[in-house]
């Protein structure tokens, strides 16, 4: 009898859900504005590059993406279970691998921007 490792993933899921609930409407709105051709000032190359070069910018963006990726991964695992896909072990490996890939890419690109 012990506390299952699911406790860790659930924590990330909960944090990611909170973060994405607050921030993703804004994020999606940004993409919508870009798609409409109304790209805001802050997304001009030099401005956003400046933001992403700062450590505050890197940490914030990484934090948001990291939590959101793991939130989506864990939730997708539950969704698959709910929709009848019972091979939970395999599903877990796939979704958490995707989240890991996303995390590593986000870290790599953010570190590389200067």
């Amino acid at each position, binding site marked *: 009898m012990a506390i299952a490792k699911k406790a860790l993933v659930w924590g990330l899921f909960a944090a990611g*859900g909170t973060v994405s609930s607050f921030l993703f409407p804004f994020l999606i709105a940004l993409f919508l504005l870009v*798609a409409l051709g109304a790209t805001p000032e802050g997304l001009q190359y030099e401005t956003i590059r400046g933001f992403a070069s700062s450590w505050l910018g890197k940490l914030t963006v990484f934090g948001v*993406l990291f939590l959101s990726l793991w939130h989506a991964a864990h939730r997708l695992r539950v*969704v698959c279970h709910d929709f009848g896909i019972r091979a939970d072990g395999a599903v877990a490996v796939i979704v958490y691998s995707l989240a890991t890939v996303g995390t590593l890419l986000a870290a790599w690109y953010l570190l590389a921007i200067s």
Partner: protein
Amino acid sequence: MSRNPYVRPISKTTWYLRNGRFRIYALREVTCLLVGFYSFLSIFALRALWQGADSWNAFLASQQSTPMVLFHAFALVYFFIYQTVGWFQLAPKAMPLMMGEKKVAASTIVLGHYLVWALVSLFLLWFVGVI
């Protein structure tokens, strides 16, 4: 002891279609696909940013199409209703606050969430120069 209990079969793949409560739950849970999608789209954006001004501008240009406008508009509404609103409504259950002998009303906690969301969103919109 049970003599010959009968176990009623449940569909493992369509149970969520059975009533309104479950259908809303299913619609709520699939917002994870949107969270995943926009996370990876943001990562693509980061890649373009890293590669330089031309890549970045090309990425921005690639977003400018009618299907993308429609998709983002749909995603914004769907996400707001089924993730943000849903999450805020459930938040009081996970965070019981006591004021002396009384529980803080759930509606107060929900209102607090919307307030913070509005303030954060307004700040961010100002930060990127939309307002």
